[in-house]
């Protein structure tokens, strides 16, 4: 931890850490620390243990099952979870869908949908991107037409994270034709086992299956499964994507990686010493650590602003840009730390030469390739700069 936390805050951090150590499965922890994905059932088990403790959704209002913590406590909680290698929250349901429902959903939707997110009995995925609509969501071409009290959905989604593990999906579709491309969109809610939905895996160059294509072929869903008003989907989508922006820099994860890097580098030989003593390692590690430290201070500055009722502006875009670059630099440094073993392909490919090669070596190349997505998704870093120029600078 760092900076000007109060003694109470530090005590809270200790409590969280103790809870994790008592409840998190060691295998899951190792998996996450190595950059692998936990399975749905591993996630669900962890989420249920948080639920039992009353910590299932710190970002929610207390009336829906939130914790009532301060923004600083919530930040600490996220950070400690990350540092300790706990599975992340099911973001699509908890941090994207839920806030929209709380604001725009019907009472029935709140009552039926929110509790199952808390327990992870429902695991949601998000159907927004399409082959022709990535950073530019107004380009969505999937359609839904209303017939006899049902929406009939046709079209294709892409980059749908964990669609193969989710049992629910919310999709952005075109429900009417409008002059302005941003109008006429709506968000619909449906179960993944609805007839007509096909999920096709996309395998990435690190050989992982995390994202998918999802096809909709005359998929029928009751008319009431819409969020808010027909045609205002663009507004809801912007609201939804605007949430949880201070956590975007993944300060905790980078801190964890900085520590692991040092620890691993001091076990790997390099010439007559260890990697941790190599000038290139020291320089690059220090540069990333410094950047991380300043980014952390920036995050805390924003949190203080939020705590006093302010609304961070373009600083959140800054966190996205610099946070992603810090993570990418770390992934790159990992490659050089494990040397020639960085290129071994596939889990456990490496022969254990004299038991010297660290197990991380099996994952670093995959993590590096995968890290490149960080400056692409959630609004590419170019888009983030456009936003800063437009909204902060008036250009």
């Amino acid at each position, binding site marked *: 931890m760092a*900076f*000007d936390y109060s003694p109470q805050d530090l005590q809270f951090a200790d409590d969280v850490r103790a809870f994790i150590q008592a409840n998190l499965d060691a295998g899951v922890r190792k998996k996450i620390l190595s950059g692998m994905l936990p399975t749905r059932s591993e996630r669900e088990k962890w989420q249920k243990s948080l639920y039992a403790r009353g910590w299932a959704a710190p970002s929610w209002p207390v009336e829906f099952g939130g914790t009532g913590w301060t923004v600083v406590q919530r930040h600490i909680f996220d950070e400690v979870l990350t540092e300790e290698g706990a599975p992340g929250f099911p973001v699509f349901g908890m941090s994207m869908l839920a806030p929209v429902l709380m604001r725009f959903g019907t009472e029935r939707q709140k009552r039926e949908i929110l509790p199952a997110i808390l327990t992870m009995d429902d695991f949601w995925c998000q159907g927004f991107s399409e082959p022709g609509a990535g950073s530019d969501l107004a380009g969505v071409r999937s359609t839904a037409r209303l017939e006899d009290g049902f929406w009939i959905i046709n079209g294709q989604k892409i980059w749908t994270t964990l669609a193969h593990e989710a049992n629910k999906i919310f999709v952005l579709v075109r429900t009417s034709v409008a002059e302005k491309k941003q109008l006429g969109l709506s968000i619909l809610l449906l179960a993944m086992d609805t007839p007509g939905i096909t999920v096709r895996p996309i395998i990435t160059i690190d050989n992982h299956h995390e994202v998918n294509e999802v096809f909709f072929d005359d998929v029928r869903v009751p008319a009431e499964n819409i969020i808010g008003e027909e045609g205002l989907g663009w507004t809801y989508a912007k609201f939804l994507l605007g949430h949880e922006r201070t956590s975007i820099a993944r300060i905790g994860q980078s801190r964890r990686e900085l520590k692991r890097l040092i620890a691993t580098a001091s076990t790997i030989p390099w010439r007559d010493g260890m990697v941790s*003593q190599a000038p290139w390692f*020291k*320089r690059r590690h*220090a*540069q990333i*650590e*410094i*950047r991380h*430290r*300043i*980014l952390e*201070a*920036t995050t805390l*500055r924003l949190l*203080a602003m939020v705590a*006093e009722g302010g609304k961070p502006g*373009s*600083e959140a875009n*800054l966190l996205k*840009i*610099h946070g992603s670059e810090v993570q990418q630099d770390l992934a790159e440094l990992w490659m050089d730390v494990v040397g020639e073993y960085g290129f071994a392909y596939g889990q456990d490919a490496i022969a254990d030469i004299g038991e010297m090669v660290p197990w991380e070596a099996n994952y670093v190349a995959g993590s590096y390739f995968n890290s490149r997505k960080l400056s692409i998704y959630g609004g590419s870093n*170019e888009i983030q*700069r*456009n936003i*800063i*120029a*437009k909204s*902060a*600078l*008036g*250009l």
Partner: protein
Amino acid sequence: MQTETQTMLSHSISAMLDKHQPSDRLREGLAATNLWGALVELGLAGAEIPEAFGGLGLSFTDIAPMFEDLGRGLATTCYLEFAVMGTWLLHASDNLVAHGLLAGAATGDTRAVLTFSEFGSAGDPAFARTSATATAAGWSLNGAKSVVVGGSLATHLLVPAMQDGKLALFLVPADAPGVTRHSLQLYDASSAADITLDNACVAASHLLARGEQASALITLALDRARAALCHEAVGLMAAVHDLTLDYVKSRKQFGQPIGAFQTMQHRLATMFMDLELCRSAADVATSAAQHSATPQQRMQAVSAAMVTLCQCARNIGQSAVQAHGGIALTREYQAGHYFKRLTMIERYLGTGDDHLERYIALAS
């Protein structure tokens, strides 16, 4: 979030600077205008001196943010040299002679500067070659100090010197026999002096500290100055960013404002981010200078801030010039003067390379 004291100081500085617009001072020739006197009038010469000694008894955290206002106004003041380093050292040294100077320091009549740099010492007093030898009357100092900002206006010098192979800190009246000052003007409009000490003699009581204690004092004085420098840089950067933003919105090329070009927009967005990062760096450094548990933690935090500062100062300064084009390099236009001061700040209390090295050395 600003405290009341910080807000009040910020207002005083702004009001004072309103009377001394950079544009006016540019016309007069910036060099002519050292605003130290104006700060004295505001009663700030002894801001950090306890009230018992005639000062205001403020903390470093109170006064550091006002450097942002000074930076924004491109103010040449020597406040960093006389107050943050000089006067603070007089008080922190716990030496009777030095304490006797505090009343004068609080009125601005006494001005002490730390002569931290020698040619080849890379600004680090640990590499001082100036030597002190014991005499019957006290100490005799020999050596040369380089480009001491404020050195020609100072009444006293705080001189790091090697005594018996150990660093020591001496108080030397600027008019002591054996002290020669050669004034030189710097590109950022501050004035400095090369100072030679040729058997400069002071009484035994003028030894302020030695060994570990001297190093600790000097390093802390410099780290405080670095934190203040970060704040000044934030002000300079904010001002030059504003200038640039206005310029790209009004200047037209190929039939549209140059700010309509996407690469120009991204350049300005990057400048904006550099500015925000430097703001965080200033927070980190100030908090460390005031609160750090150990000197090592403080030094690491300050060097992290300085590495950031140097990078951001360079990026913003160069970007501002590039966005403006030739006009930024003319003497009549303000942007170039901000660029010059940022260029100096990037080197004045250690370069980015120096601070990265210090950071690494402290980590291992």
